[in-house]
């Protein structure tokens, strides 16, 4: 399972939410982006996710979009279950 993260570092804090809204009908047909604050979102990696990233790059001011490949969230083991140790 792989994801991409799209980060925005420009002056318009609404940029990402606006572009998601603009493409919402299309994105609804695939998997929904998950926002972390206003300037970072994560999408399940797929051809449509990459297309959305391309649209972000095209619409944003130069050098204000960064795209990160992401494998998965780090799974911090909540507890060590001593019950499982023999």
């Amino acid at each position: 399972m792989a994801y991409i993260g799209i980060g925005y570092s420009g002056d318009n804090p609404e940029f990402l939410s606006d572009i998601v809204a603009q493409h919402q009908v299309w994105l609804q047909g695939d998997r929904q982006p998950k926002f972390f604050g206003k300037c970072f979102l994560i999408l399940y990696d797929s051809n449509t996710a990459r297309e959305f990233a391309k649209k972000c790059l095209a619409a944003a001011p130069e050098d204000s979009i960064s795209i990160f490949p992401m494998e998965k969230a780090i799974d911090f083991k909540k507890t060590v279950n001593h019950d499982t140790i023999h």
Partner: protein
Amino acid sequence: MIQFTEKFEPVKILRLLSRAIPYYLKSWQDYTPETGLFGNTNPKTFNMQEVGSSSPVIEYVIRPHVNVLCILSAYVYKNYFPNDLSSFLTREKAVELVHKGLHWMCDTHITGSLNIESFLARKRWGENWRSGTWASLMGLCSFLISDTLSGELTEKIKTVVAFEADRFSGMLPPSGCDVDTKLEENAQDTMIISWALNIMPDHLHYDKWQQALNIWAVNIASSIRHKADHSEYLGKSVSYWTTTQTLFPDLTAENHGFFNPEILSYGTWIVLSMAAFRFYNRDIPDILHRKVHQETFDILLRFCLPNGTVYTPCSSDYPFFIPHPFALAWGLWNNDPRAQRMTTILLGWMDTRLKPADNTAVPWIPGFEAHYEGWELFFQSQVGFELAMLSVIPFPEEHRFYSMGQIENAIDTRHIYPYVQVCYRRNTRTTRSVAWKALGRHPVIGLNIHSYPELLIPFRANLLGIPNVDGGIRHWEIAFHNDFLKKAGFDTYGQIDYYNSSYERMLYRHIRIMTWGDDGLVIFDRIYAARDLFFYEQYLSPVYLVNDIWTNNKLDLISGSLRETIHAYNFSGRHMNCPSFWASIESSVLFQFLWGRNKGLTFIPGNERNAPRYWNNCRLDMLAVYAEGKQCKKDDIAYEIGFYLGAGKAPRPFKSAGSCGNFFKGIVVMDGKNTAGLD
């Protein structure tokens, strides 16, 4: 009966395919004088609209439709209309239906003007996860019937193909190999770029498509080792352009969360890309001929069963027994005698084993009622599409010499695939596997007897079962496993933990599985209570047996003095206790206790077709072991068993001795000629 040879003769393949034509034609709906559809835009059965994602929802409308268009186009391309089809299909009729079907596809694409209510919010198809594939198949159709197409329809198709190809210019392909590999997706997206390049060589975007092809093709099948390939590519290096990892380092990958070897048949899409260049008499780009595709093909081949179907060590969430006659297309394109032999065997199997009861029954994947729509039509049309491709793709006509021994040696395998957690042994007589990561996230132990490859299915938790206790078991996880190659196979052991709905550990289970001789498995299994609990009366260690069309709707059971034939049409559900410490089914497979217990073996008929919840196409009976209900204290043994499962019709002289230590260490197993001490 059709006599297939390794030299593919399109006429014979189309003859086989013609059996399904009445079924496909029955799905046709005329919408207007110019448009129509194979299937239904909102199927009553197998409708997955609740999924909500565009590709699954639209796929069961568009994909079967375009599959059938390709099938009919193959008949037109080959200009072959056998006499027994004459009352159903003529050349004129086929051309008319393909034209109408292509018109409908163009109109309902987002570059068209016709809304379809069931196509979610946008009410059109296009720009979807799979729509590049759908458009590629339109392009393929347009080539096959090119001499009949009007200029207007040709232009409309070009518009759709160009739109879908444009999506992949100026961006990098998606990545990932675990849970859901991007192998197939990237191969399919490469295909639409290839078709666009060939259909529209004068298009303004040609250079962009060419660049996109170069980048996507190098990222179809990529692993970490390609990051170490610094050879020249596009003025830089392969490493530079390889931005994905769609394969694990051992060249396996996961789909739907586990390894299904069929995912390695992605080469079919590459062949369809290369075919675009061949059809239009252009040079095939070298990048489509990567060595890694041959390597993954070699792995796929090792999972092909003697009837030509593909073994699924981790079980499968598709219908059972879907034939894929085009799965080995990569080998066929490269003149691989193993691929030719396997494909021929599969065609023969389809010819003799899959005979629909009448013209309107489902043709290729029995067990479904015919509804002529939705996913059912998709599965049935996909097989037809693959046959059609076998008949039209220009495979090499010269054949290399080979012997059966060479072929068998080539697929003799003893391998541990660590990334997908599969231990695998295949020889001429059997295929054996242990998949620690499998359907339902539970391990699956698999056996296939090559003399009767349809008999056993590695279904969910096969040969283990999922135990039940007071308070319920809701989750499980593999704590660890240790896998070893042995001289003649493998030996693997590990622990499974079971939890209730509150994630409290209820049970832990030690299992150990080793290959035995040429054709069997020895399985040790011990379940411990992790807390005080009541362990329910239940059946465990199930062997799933196909009692359906593929096994002639009956199973013969022998156990000691018991002789029974269980008919598939008998739904009494009566359990049969086996009186002996062994049982054999169809004189082909033997289950025999060898440690821990010597009774409780029970035959449990399936009451209804019993497969994953969407695709109930196969009745599975069960041979399982009765486990008594009991109150257990923490660390008590709730269930323990050691048994043999392998080819055979009568008990073998098994003996076991020694004391059982951790993970069954210390036990010695003998069966006359073989002795093994577990260490």
